[in-house]
């Protein structure tokens, strides 16, 4: 429970930090997203209800901060990002047995894939709303770039979060000692 609260606070802080990270011009203005990496770590290390809680929090913040209200219409309604985060976090949660056995590398890659999936889903939704769909080199980079960066920062982020999980005695730690605790968890 303590670790869940820690992750909520970190998600909130990461969302603020993202505002001040400029896009990478050498990567066609791809952006760095930290929040998905934290949420997907939570998806592997928390029980399912807490995962959904974290996904809700992250999705709500994303929607509340990015929803575009234009006259009498909203481009992407509040709730879609919650749904996206919930689905992707549930998928990551399904891979948890691998994580508990210490196979963290699969999750680093999956964090990147899921981060790109969020950006791609946003792009598809706004393209649908705006009535045209195209993919150019910039679009692909802006979709794939955040995923690649997430893959690169995930090992460090996971190491820090793993340390925090240990500090807060979270029972879902990815080591063999914690495996028994995982089995015993209700």
């Amino acid at each position: 429970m303590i670790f869940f609260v820690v992750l909520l606070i970190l998600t909130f802080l990461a969302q603020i930090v993202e505002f001040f990270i400029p896009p990478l011009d050498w990567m066609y203005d791809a952006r760095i997203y930290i929040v998905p990496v934290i949420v997907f770590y939570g998806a592997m290390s928390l029980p399912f209800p807490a995962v959904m809680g974290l996904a809700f929090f992250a999705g709500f913040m994303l929607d509340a901060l990015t929803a575009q209200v234009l006259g009498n219409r909203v481009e992407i309604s509040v709730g879609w990002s919650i749904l996206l985060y919930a689905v992707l976090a549930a998928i990551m949660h399904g891979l948890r047995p691998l994580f508990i056995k210490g196979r963290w590398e699969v999750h680093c890659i999956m964090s990147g894939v899921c981060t790109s999936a969020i950006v791609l889903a946003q792009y598809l939704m706004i393209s649908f709303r705006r009535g045209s769909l195209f993919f150019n080199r910039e679009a692909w980079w802006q979709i794939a770039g955040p995923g690649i960066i997430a893959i690169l920062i995930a090992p460090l982020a996971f190491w820090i979060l793993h340390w925090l999980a240990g500090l807060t005695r979270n029972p879902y730690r990815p080591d063999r000692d914690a495996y028994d605790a995982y089995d015993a968890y209700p």
Partner: protein
Amino acid sequence: MNRTSIITLVVLGAILVYFLTFGAEGTRKLQAGFYRVMSPFLSSGSGIKKQLTSVSTGLQTLEELEKDNASLKVENRSLKATNQALRDVEHEVNRLRRALAYRERALFRLVPAEVIARDSSTWWRTISINRGKADGIEPDQAVVTDEGVVGKTATVGDNITIVLLISDENCKVACSIEGSREQGIVSGERVTGSITPMLDLNFLSKQANLNPSAKVYTSGVGGVFPSGLLVGTIQSFRVRELDSQARVTPAVDLSHLEDVFVVTGRK
């Protein structure tokens, strides 16, 4: 799946349905409320970023400082020379201003605002400014700098406002072109990979034949943007099957905005 997980999913589903039924007004209120909570963090973050930037730009090597000193001395001599000339120009400008009653004609009530954050998302181009309802700002008001149009206000909180930049595809501005009777709609691009985003000027006639470097101004149609504000400069022009399109370089450097003005009405 155990009972707790099922209950969690049901609760999450119910909340989702509730949120998805929000209309524009509900979303606007929710967003304004959330930004009100976030604004102290964004303001603090903005301040920290400025301090960090000033520290990193202030650190120079001795060699760089010597080089700067030499170039500043040259610049100083040059400025002294031009200063006298500018005094004459200033006098003339003041005279012309009085003659044209510029202040009476120019016309807008402007609320100065500071940019506190840029949108962190990939597909939307917005900024947050530190003024809101308390300062008389409302949705759909033009945001400008002394160089030209920046965008328009979207969601307005008590002390924070989200500004939709002119480089966003959803920000459409009716424009006229200098030296031409053509009118068109300027909008941003959905995907841009460069630091300086370009704008598209659409719905021009096939006979438009616009000159590159012609200036594009707001036409006043639509009611959001007053007429005569500089939007940008035409960079290229191409004729399409049914109409023609021009590419426009924005007058304002949207990537380095710090201070803007919200046009809250006419004087």
